[in-house]
Each structure stands twice: as structure tokens, then as C-alpha cells.
């Protein structure tokens, strides 16, 4: 397990390094003068020259990359062009809002999706199972931004049940929860279906196993068998998938934050693009990517901890 952990963590470091490299090499690939493209047509030649020096664009590419890694390792992601603050601080201020949204979405989709999957597995082949199946597929297919706009239109604008913008007052948890409902609906809806499908499939597998038949032969109530014995094993692959799903959720969260004008990393990046605040865009993309790599690493380690067969795959 230790060898696997070290190998897998090493791989995560290499992957992060390569994705950072891809990210900075993008800037080299822009046709024309990066300073002109990034600052926009209104920038004066002096501003461009200053930007070039600030970003080190007047140096050869290799030196730029080496310097960049040096700065990233010391936690310096550059300076916010508009406010002159550290990009790291700006992003870290917004990250909790995004994490709260992702956590709420995982929470409610697991609470609904897992029991639905058990239900479908127990009544396999019935009409109810088929309906759950079609609903699951549909909820997976629906894009989060469509759900967000339709939710806003119906529940906020037409019915007035939920607030349309913001994340609520920082001192009032109930108000914050109220503001979380629609965004987490948009982010989590697809996961209800996905979890239901995953749980149903692994439940069906587990329910045919010997220890379940044994429990039945002992005359244990079906309820106990399902939830105490079968679900405990069937839930393992789901936990792993959830870890990998965080990346997908961050993507959906970007849309939910923009539609509901919620603070968060997605909104930060989006606003930074429209103000051409390039260091903030790159810094925030780096941090979320790093976070995502960490989540997949955690998921893989949990999988390896639970299932020794996984350890030999690396």
C-alpha cells in the first residue's frame, strides 16, 4: 500500500507539473503579440511594454517556464492586475463558496440517488425500476446551466420562492442555505441519476453473492439484508466515483455561480476574463486543477485501501 501511495502521489505531481506546463505554453502559442492580445486594442504601447516585463514575456520561453515553476513552488501566483493583490489570496477568498456549493450538491444527490439505486435494484425489472432508469439517464443528460436558468425562471422569477442572486449574508446560516438551494439543484441533479445507476448496478452484483444468500437462508428481514449487508459493499465504487466527479462538479459550479451571481472561483474566473485580468484567470485555473488532481488522488487511494487488487495496476 505504501509503494502504491508513493507511486500514485508521484504521478499526481508529474501530472500537475505537465498540466501547468500546458497552461503556460498556451500563452506562447497565441498568434501575434501576447501583450496586445491580452490587454486588448485600447492599451497604449507603454502599457504593453510594462505588461511584457511584468509577465517576463521579454525573456526566452525556457527561462519563462523555469521562473514560472519557481514562483508557483513558493506560492506566488502573480498579482491581480486590477487590485494589485496577490492572486493566491483572491482565489482563496472565493474557494470556500465553491466548495460549499459542491459539498451541498454531493450531499443532496447522495441522499436521494443512493436510496433510489437500492430501490431500483430490489425491484429489478419492474415498472418502477424502468422509470427510475429513464429518469436517471435523463437527469445525467441535462446540462447544469439549462437546469440553472430554468430553475431561476420558475422558482425565483415566476414563483418567487428563492432569491435570485448572491450567497446570502455571511452571519445568517439559514439565509445562506436558502441561497444554496437552486444552485445546488443545478449542480447535483445529474449526480442523482448517476449515483442511482452506479448503486443499482453494484447492488445487483452484490445481491447475488454467497453471504447475501446465506443471510436470506437465515431468515433475516430483506430490509436488514439490503441496507446492513449489501449496501455496505455496494457503496465502495460509488465513493470512488464521487472523488473523480468533483472535477465535473466544479465545471457545473462555474455555471451555477454565474447564473445565480454567487461568489466563487467560477464567477471569479469569468469576471476576470471580461476585464482581461489574465493572472487571475491562470491562477484560479491552476488552483482548481490542482484541487481536482488531489481529489482524484484521494479517490484512487481510497479505492486501493478498500480493494487490494487496485494496488497492482500502477
Amino acid at each position, binding site marked *: 500500500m505504501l509503494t502504491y501511495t508513493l507511486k500514485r502521489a508521484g504521478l499526481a505531481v508529474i501530472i500537475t507539473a505537465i498540466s501547468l506546463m500546458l497552461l503556460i505554453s498556451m500563452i506562447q502559442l497565441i498568434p501575434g503579440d501576447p501583450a496586445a492580445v491580452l490587454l486588448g486594442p485600447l492599451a497604449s504601447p507603454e502599457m504593453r511594454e510594462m505588461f511584457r516585463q511584468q509577465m517576463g514575456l521579454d525573456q526566452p520561453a525556457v527561462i519563462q517556464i523555469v521562473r514560472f515553476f519557481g514562483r508557483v513552488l513558493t506560492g506566488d501566483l502573480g498579482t491581480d492586475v486590477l487590485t494589485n493583490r496577490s492572486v493566491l489570496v483572491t482565489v482563496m477568498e472565493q474557494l470556500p463558496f465553491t466548495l460549499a456549493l459542491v459539498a451541498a450538491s454531493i450531499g443532496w444527490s447522495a441522499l436521494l440517488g443512493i436510496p433510489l439505486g437500492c430501490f431500483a435494484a430490489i425491484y429489478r425489472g419492474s415498472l418502477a425500476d424502468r422509470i427510475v432508469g429513464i429518469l436517471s439517464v435523463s437527469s445525467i*443528460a441535462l446540462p447544469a446551466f*439549462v437546469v440553472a436558468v430554468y430553475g*431561476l425562471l420558475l422558482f425565483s422569477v415566476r414563483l418567487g420562492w428563492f432569491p435570485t442572486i448572491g450567497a446570502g449574508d455571511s452571519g445568517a446560516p439559514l439565509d445562506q442555505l436558502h441561497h444554496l438551494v437552486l444552485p445546488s439543484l443545478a449542480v447535483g441533479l445529474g449526480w442523482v441519476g448517476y449515483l442511482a445507476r452506479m448503486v443499482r448496478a453494484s447492488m445487483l452484483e452484490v445481491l447475488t453473492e454467497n453471504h447475501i444468500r446465506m443471510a436470506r437462508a437465515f431468515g433475516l428481514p430483506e430490509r436488514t439484508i439490503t441496507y446492513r449487508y449489501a449496501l455496505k459493499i455496494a457503496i465502495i465504487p460509488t465513493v470512488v466515483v464521487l472523488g473523480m466527479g468533483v472535477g465535473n462538479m466544479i465545471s457545473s459550479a462555474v455555471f451555477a455561480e454565474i447564473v445565480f451571481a454567487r461568489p466563487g472561483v467560477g464567477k471569479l474566473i469569468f469576471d476576470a476574463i471580461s476585464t482581461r485580468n489574465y493572472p487571475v*484567470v491562470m491562477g484560479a485555473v491552476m488552483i482548481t486543477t490542482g484541487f481536482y488532481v488531489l481529489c482524484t488522488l484521494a479517490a484512487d487511494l481510497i479505492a486501493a485501501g478498500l480493494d487490494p487488487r487496485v494496488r497492482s495496476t500502477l
Partner: protein
Amino acid sequence: MSDQLFDSAREARGSGFRHSTLGRIISDPMGLLGITLVALILLGALLAGFTGYNPAKLAMRDRFLDASFAHLLGTDHLGRDLFTRALYGARIALGVAFVATGISFIGGLVLGMIAGYGPRWLDSLLLLFFDSLRSFPTVMLALALVTLTGPSLASVVLVVVLATLPGYARVVRAQTMSLKTAEFVLSARVLGARPWRILAIHILPNLIGPLVILVSMDIPVVITIEAGMSFLGLGVRPPTPSWGSILNDGYAFIRESSWPAIAGGLPIIIATLGFTFLGETLRDHLDPRLRKDA
């Protein structure tokens, strides 16, 4: 002997329309629904020019009209007919889907075969490259890329390719590796066939089937990426109608009228559901092994 076997196999499988692929898809309720929805979208894309309205022509006196027989989905903030714009949006969505998945398909096939058949170091290098590409959440990749390239249809295609190609390449690589040691490939090698001949004639035909199903199941994902990027203003430029940009107009004017939001979201829902239902049914009937959860 072999003829007899073949005949009895055909007998067991049955013949005629009911047992053809199309017949089996239609007899499944989910497949029938999927094919109907996809047909609606295709029909819409074909008939976009025949509604009697210009999708880009402004008519300021007709702003925010509700749905009626004259305007099936109402009009937007510039008085443009939303039904017409939604139909033209189908052309953009399907165009991007086919071009981008086509590039991904070919790219994934070539890179995957190189990784699977080539030397070990090249395999490790490509694998690292794929994993690094996959470590970006798609929207983040799109945001970072478009900051640099500017919004355009080409950037949308690029994002789709970068987001989908690594997955295809990995599947192709795994298949190639297992085929590499198959007896028919080994005998070809013993007979002196060169690597490119083995790849093109012996391995490639075995890869295409599963990959086609995989790629077709990704069409809703691609449509979602295009619409999502256009929704964020990172995709097609106005006044070109895309479902995403129509939905964004609807979001901007959500207090004035519900129809632009409805007209932008409805086709996205129809298309993603249609292609998903169709893809799921296709996979179940053609290659159940590809099911991740069965």
C-alpha cells in the same frame, strides 16, 4: 459444415426487420423516444430556412412577443423569431458535434494505436499527456483557452477535441494492447508484416466498432460543451444563433419575458435527451460489454 453453422446461427438470431439493429432499437421504448427526438432535431436543422423569418433580422416593434401561431416560441429582445433561431441553432450544434467528434475520433484512433503498439517510452509519454489533459475540468480548460484565443467556433471545436480525445485514445490504447498479443496478429508478424500493415489491416478494423459507439454516446456531451461555451459568450459570436447564446439572452432578459429562456433551453434538452437515449439503446444492443455499470 461452416455453412451449416452459419445457417443455424442466423436461424437462432432470426431475420427480417424486427431483428435488424433499427428494428431492435425501435422496439425498445427508450430507443424509440431517442430516435424520435433526434429526428426532430435533424428535421429542424434541415427546415431552418423555411420558417419565413430571417434569424438575424431586427424587428424592434415585435420585441418580447409571447408564443403564438405567427411566432411559435415568441420573439426575443430584438424582435427576432425565436423558433427560427432555435432551428438555425440546431445547424451550429450538429455541425460542431460532427466536426469535433470526427477530429477526436481520428486523433484518438491514431494516438491510441501509437501508444498501444509503439515503444514503451512513447506509450508512457503519451499516457502522461492524456492524463494531464484530463486533469483540467472542461469548463476551466475552455475559460483558460478562450482568454487567449478569443471566442470563436474554432475554439469550441478545439476545447471539445481536447476534452474528448484523451478518453478515446485510452480506450484505443487498451484494445490495441490486448490485440497485440492475439494469435492472428502474432501470425501476421511471423509472416513478416510491417507494423503499419498490422495496425491498418489487422488491428484497426477491430477498434472502429467499439469506438463508434463510444463517440456517438459523447454527442450529447459535445452539444452541451458548445451550448455551454456559447452561453458564457465563449463560443459563436452574435448574431449567429446558437442554443447557448439564445439561452444567455433569455437569462439576461429573464424578467421581461420567459420565452427566450425557454426557446434556448428546450432544444438543448431535446437534443441531449434524444442522443443519450439513442446512444444508450445502441450500446445495449450492439455492444453490452461497453456498459460501465452493468
